[in-house]
């Protein structure tokens, strides 16, 4: 279990190229089943609007999972992530069409710690909204 990115080859301020992740209603149905979170705001438009939301919204944890995917794809090993936290700052609204919504994740090396660990600061956007804030992953590199 070793990351493929080497600690000595990473510098503070280094950017990790952005990646786009699509989220459609089908993804939310699958995520509801896999996670056990069946809150109706994530799949029932009628219910979502009745409780004051603009439409069905993605599970926050679905968005956090895309940030996790971004980090593990970069690091090369899911086991390299030693800490991962986010604040959900805006909702990802998922329309009932074939395009769905797009979550764009990018990252920057914010800090180098001891023990070959680095702090990756993540940015996640959907449309005009920043959907995660204070998103940080601590990753142990090779």
């Amino acid at each position, binding site marked *: *279990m*070793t990351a493929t990115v080497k600690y000595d080859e990473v510098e503070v301020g280094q950017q990790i190229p952005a990646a786009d*992740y*699509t989220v459609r209603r089908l*993804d939310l149905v*699958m*995520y509801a*089943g*896999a*996670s*056990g*979170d069946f*809150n*109706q*705001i994530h799949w029932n438009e009628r*219910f979502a609007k009745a*409780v*004051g939301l603009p439409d069905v*919204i993605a*599970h*926050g*944890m*679905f968005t*956090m*999972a*895309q940030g*996790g*995917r971004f*980090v*593990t*794809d970069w690091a090369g*090993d*899911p*086991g390299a*992530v*030693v*800490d*991962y*936290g*986010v*604040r*959900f700052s805006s*909702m990802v609204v998922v329309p009932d069409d074939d395009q769905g919504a797009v979550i764009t994740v990018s990252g920057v090396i914010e800090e180098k710690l001891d023990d070959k660990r680095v702090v990756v600061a993540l940015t996640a956007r959907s449309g005009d909204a920043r959907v995660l804030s*204070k998103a940080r*992953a601590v990753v142990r590199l090779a």
Partner: protein
Amino acid sequence: MALNRDFVGRTYASTTPYEVSRVKIREFAAAIGDHNPIYRDKEAAQAAGHPDVVAPPTFPIAFSLQSGGEALADPDLGLNFAMVVHGEQRFEYHRPIYAGDELVTSSTITDIRSAGRNELLTVRSDITTVAGEPVCVSYNTIVERGGAA
């Protein structure tokens, strides 16, 4: 309606261990759209130095709230689930979660506070193996929209 502050400090332990299966990890990876073979293929995971398939970093959410969920459903807490959205989430990993792990979770409501018109409730969940080995700590803050109004 304001949440009942008497719940702060209450701890809820899982009654039965959660058994992590390859099938569940595969299902979770498919649901987040992640095709990494390390989540699906034991040989690929072992080639990368793991004992078995690895769970994605956010996988603990699928089981860690079951014990705390009982608290959130208690009518005395006064939580209106229809108005709940996720506010913050953090995981500290002592080690990766693998297929075959048998995990127990102890969840404590650590904080309830108001922020504007909303009520915020934070649950800390300590996840260990049945043998007591620390695996992960989850910090989960949910927001009840309009709860403090």
